[in-house]
C-alpha cells in the first residue's frame, strides 16, 4: 500500500479526475482536473497549490553542521546564511552527481534539506569519516510541504502571514499560519513567483484550508505533478530520474553525469577563492581545467514550422496539446551524413505558453552553442522523422516576478 501525505483528505476531495500515481511511495494525483492545461496555466496566470510532501526531508544540526555541509555538498554552503536557501547538489569522489536538492538555514546552525531520494545514511557516513559533531535527522514524515506557485502567490501568502512580505528570492522565514508553526521559503520548481511551506504533519489540513480560503479570490488551483513538470522544462529545471540519474545506482559511467555536464558549472564560479575539501572537488576541478566534460545539458527550442511540416505532410494534426514526455529522443547532427547520432533529449513538452516544443537535451560540446541547429527525432504515424531544433539558453521562460521584491505595495 502506498503512503498518503498528511494533506491526503484534502487532496482526495479535490481530485476530480480520480487519477493517482506513485511518487516515492506516496499516493499523489498526476492531475486533479480533466484539463492539464488549466492546471498548467494556474502556475503561469493565477496561483497553483502542489503537495510535494513525498520529497525526503532532513534536518542537519550540531556545532559542525556548516563544516559538514561544506564537505558533503558541492556548492559552497557559506552562500547560505541564516534565513537563506540554496539550490545545491552533492557528488561522489569521482565528481559524479549523487543528487540535487534545496537546503535552507532556517535558524543559526539549523539546516533543512529536501532531496528526491534517501540520503540519510550516506550523509552520516561522510560525517563520521570527517568526525563532525553533527546530527542528521530524517524528518520526512514529520512535515508536509506545499508549493504555492504563480503570479498571484504573493496575493495569497500575504493574507496568511505578514512575515513573508517582503521575502527575497531564496530567502526563508519562520512564521505561523492559523497558529501553526510554518517555514516559508521563496522557492519553487516552476520558474515563477512562488513560495514553499514546511508544515508540521499534524497541522497539514489546517494550513491547506487556510491557503485555499486565502486563494479563493485569486483562482487558486490544486495541481498535480504533470503540470508542474511541464512548467519546470520552461524554467530549465532538471528532474532526477529523467534528465539525470544518481551516480549511486548507475552501472556504467555513461549513466553518470557531472555537475558541469548538467550545466551547473555556475555552482563552482568561486572555486578558485575557496579551499573547501568537498567530495568530488578534485575531479570537478580537473574537469573544469582540462575541459574533459563528455557532453553538456542544454535547452532545445524546436522549430515550429518544421514541427508543423512533418505532421502536416503526413496528413495529421501536429500534437501540441498537453504533450509531456520523459522518453529519450535521439538527436542528430545536421549535415551530409544521415542519422549522424549526436545526443538525446531527456525531457520534452509542447509549451502552451511559448507555443513551441521544448526539450532538455544532452549534446557534445561542439554543438552546445546557443543557436546551433540539430535534428530531433520525432515519431510521425509510427515513422521516425527529423525536425529542426536550435540550442537555446535556459530558462526559456523567466518572468520578472520570479525574483521581484514583492514588497507590500507590489502586485496582487
Amino acid at each position, binding site marked *: 500500500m502506498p503512503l498518503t501525505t498528511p494533506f491526503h483528505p484534502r487532496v482526495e476531495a479535490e481530485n476530480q479526475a480520480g487519477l493517482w500515481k506513485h511518487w516515492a511511495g506516496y499516493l499523489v494525483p498526476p492531475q486533479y*482536473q480533466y484539463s492539464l*492545461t488549466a492546471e498548467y496555466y494556474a502556475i503561469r496566470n493565477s496561483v497553483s497549490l502542489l503537495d510535494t510532501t513525498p520529497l525526503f526531508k532532513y534536518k542537519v544540526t550540531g556545532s559542525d553542521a556548516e563544516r559538514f555541509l561544506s564537505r558533503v555538498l558541492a556548492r559552497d554552503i557559506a552562500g547560505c546564511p541564516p534565513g537563506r536557501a540554496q539550490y545545491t547538489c552533492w557528488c561522489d569522489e569521482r565528481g559524479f552527481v549523487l543528487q540535487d536538492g534545496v537546503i535552507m538555514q532556517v535558524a543559526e546552525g539549523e539546516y533543512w534539506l529536501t532531496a528526491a531520494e534517501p540520503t540519510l545514511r550516506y550523509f552520516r557516513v561522510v560525517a563520521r569519516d570527517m568526525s563532525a559533531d553533527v546530527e542528521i535527522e530524517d524528518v520526512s514524515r514529520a512535515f508536509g510541504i506545499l508549493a504555492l506557485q504563480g503570479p498571484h502567490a504573493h496575493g495569497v501568502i500575504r493574507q496568511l502571514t505578514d512575515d513573508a512580505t517582503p521575502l527575497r528570492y531564496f530567502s526563508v522565514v519562520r512564521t505561523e499560519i492559523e497558529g501553526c508553526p510554518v517555514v516559508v521559503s521563496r522557492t519553487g520548481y516552476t520558474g515563477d513567483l512562488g513560495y514553499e511551506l514546511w508544515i508540521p504533519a499534524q497541522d497539514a489540513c489546517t494550513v491547506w484550508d487556510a491557503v485555499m480560503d486565502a486563494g479563493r479570490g485569486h483562482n487558486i488551483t490544486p495541481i498535480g505533478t504533470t503540470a508542474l513538470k511541464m512548467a519546470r522544462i520552461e524554467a530549465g529545471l532538471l528532474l532526477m530520474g529523467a534528465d539525470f540519474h544518481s551516480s549511486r545506482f548507475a552501472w556504467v559511467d555513461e549513466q553518470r553525469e557531472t555537475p558541469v555536464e548538467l550545466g551547473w558549472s555556475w555552482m563552482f564560479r568561486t572555486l578558485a577563492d575557496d579551499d573547501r575539501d568537498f567530495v568530488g572537488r578534485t575531479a570537478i576541478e580537473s574537469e573544469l581545467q582540462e575541459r574533459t566534460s563528455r557532453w553538456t545539458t542544454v535547452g532545445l527550442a524546436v522549430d515550429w514550422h518544421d514541427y508543423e511540416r512533418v505532421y502536416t505532410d503526413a496528413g495529421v494534426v*501536429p500534437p501540441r*496539446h498537453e504533450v509531456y514526455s520523459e522518453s529519450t529522443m535521439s538527436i542528430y547532427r545536421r549535415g551530409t551524413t544521415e542519422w549522424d547520432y549526436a545526443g538525446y533529449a531527456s525531457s520534452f513538452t509542447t509549451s502552451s505558453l511559448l507555443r513551441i516544443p521544448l526539450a532538455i537535451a544532452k549534446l557534445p560540446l561542439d554543438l552546445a552553442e546557443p543557436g546551433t541547429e540539430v535534428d530531433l527525432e520525432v515519431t510521425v504515424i509510427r515513422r521516425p522523422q527529423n525536425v529542426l531544433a536550435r540550442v537555446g539558453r535556459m530558462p526559456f521562460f523567466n518572468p520578472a516576478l520570479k525574483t521581484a521584491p514583492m514588497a507590500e505595495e507590489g502586485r496582487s
Partner: protein
Amino acid sequence: MSDAQRYDAIVIGAGHNGLVNACYLAKAGLNTLLLERRHLVGGATITEEVVPGFKFTTFSYAISLLRPEIVHDLELVRHGMMVLPLVNTFQPGLDGEYLLLGADADANYHEIARHSPADAEAARDLDHIIARLVRALKPWMDRIPPNSLSDDPAEIAAMAELKGWFEELEPEVRTMFETFRTKSAAEILDEYFENDLVKSLYASSGIIGSRCSVRDRESGLVWLFHKLGEYDGEPGHWGFHKGGNGGFTQVLARAYESFGGTIRLNAGAARVRYEGGRATGVQLEDGTVLDSDLVVSALDPRQTFLRLVDPDDLPSDLVGHIRDFKFQGTAAKVNFALSDLPTFPGFEGRDDIFMGFTNLGPSIDYLMEAWADCEAGRISRRPFLDCSVQSTLDPDMAPPGKHVMSCFVMYAPYHLAEGDWETERDNLGNTVEQTIEEFFPGFSELILHREVVTPLDIERLIGLSEGNIFAGELFEDQLFLNRPAPGWNQYRTPISGYYQCGSGTHPGGCVTGGPGWLAARQILGDQAS
C-alpha cells in the same frame, strides 16, 4: 512640411488587423505610422476598466482563429501573449437539464449520453469530420486567395490549383464541405442528433454575429467558420487572452513599437489622398496632412471604398459590390460586473461550470423564436446569449471574489422596426438580465454594474458599419474570392499604393489577424517587384 510628416507607410485603424499589418510593415523596415481615431488601440478588440477593478471585454471576448504564423512571425509571446484555455462549456436548459462538456472526450461522451447515447457517438463523428475539413481548409486561410477575374497566368494557375484541391479532397471531407455550403446548421444537425439540447449547443455557432437563423442556409458556413480556429492545435477550441481581448492588442502594440513603428491616437483619418491613381497620403479629421506612397485601410469595405476615397474615382462594378456588401449587424453586447458567480439550481458553489462559454439557447425552437423577433425588426425577447465569465480563469479581470461577465447577444438588429437604439438601450439590457435570471435565479441581485453595447454603439464607437462584428457578413458570396468583391480580394484597390487589410478581406473577422498579415505579404511583395 517637415520630414516628420512623411512615412513609408500609413495604416488607418489600430484594430487588431491594422496592428498586425503595421507590425509586418515596420518589421520589414518601413517607417510606419498607425492611425487610430480613438484614445486607445484595439478597435473591436479592447478591454476597458469600466468600473474600478472590473475589466470588460467591451466587444470581442475570446480567441481561436488567430493565425498561428502571426504569433511566431511577430514574436508575440515575448511581448506577453497568453491565451488561457476554456475548461468547460455549459449549456443549461430551462427545465433543470444541462450539458457540461469539458476537456475529457470520454467524460463528454457520458455527459451527452445522459441525453442520448446515439448523440454522444454522433458528436465524435461530427467533431472528427469537421476537424478533417478544417485541416484541409487551413492552407487557404493562410494564403492570399486567387483572383477569380484576372487573366494573369499566375492567377489562372491559382484558380486551377483551387479547383484541383477541391477535386482531390477525400470524398467524405468534400461531401461535408458541400454540406456546410448548402445546408443550414439545423438541417445538418438533424442528420447527426436527436436531442434538442445537443443540437442547439452546436447550432448556435451558426448564427454568431450573422443575420440568419439556424434554419437558413447561411448558418452552415457561419458554423464552419467558427470551427476554423484552434487551441494548442486542438481544432475548434477557444481561449481567453490574459487581460481580455484588449490584452492581445496591447501585446500587438508592444510588438509594433519594438519594430520601431509609431502609433498616433486621437487621429481619425478623414480621407486618403491620391493623385493620378496613386496614393499620396492621408488627411486627418483635424486637417493635418500626412504624406506616404503607401496607405493601408484597416477599416471595413464600406469605409475603405466609399468614405476614405471618392467612389466616383473607382470602377463602378466595384462600387456596386461594396454598396451591396451586407453588414446588417444583429449582435449586441451586455457586460456585467458581478458581486459573485451566478447559481444554476442544483449546482450551488460550482465555479467550474463558468470556466468557458455559457451558452443560453437550449433548443432549436428557442433559437428560432429569437430569430422571429429579429425578422420583425426587434430585439429578441428571449435572446440567445453566449456568456463568458473571464474572471473565473483570469483573476486579474476583477477584484478578488468578484467577477465580470461578458454576454454576446443575438439578435439585436441594427435596423429597428420601431424606436431607435437610444430608446431601446435599456430594453436590451433588461431583456438580457431577465433572460439570464430565468436560467440562473438570483442573477439580478449580483449585478454591480451593467454596460450595454448596441449595434449602433459598435458602429459609432469603433466604426464597424451597421455594427457588423465581422466587418461584413460571413456569407458565401462575401467570403474568399468575393471578400470584399470579386477581383478585389487580394488586398489591393484600384488606387495604386492604397491597400485594404480589415476583416472585410480574406480570411475575415473573428480575430483571425489573417487580413492584416496577408495584406502585408501582398504589399511587401508588390514593393519588392
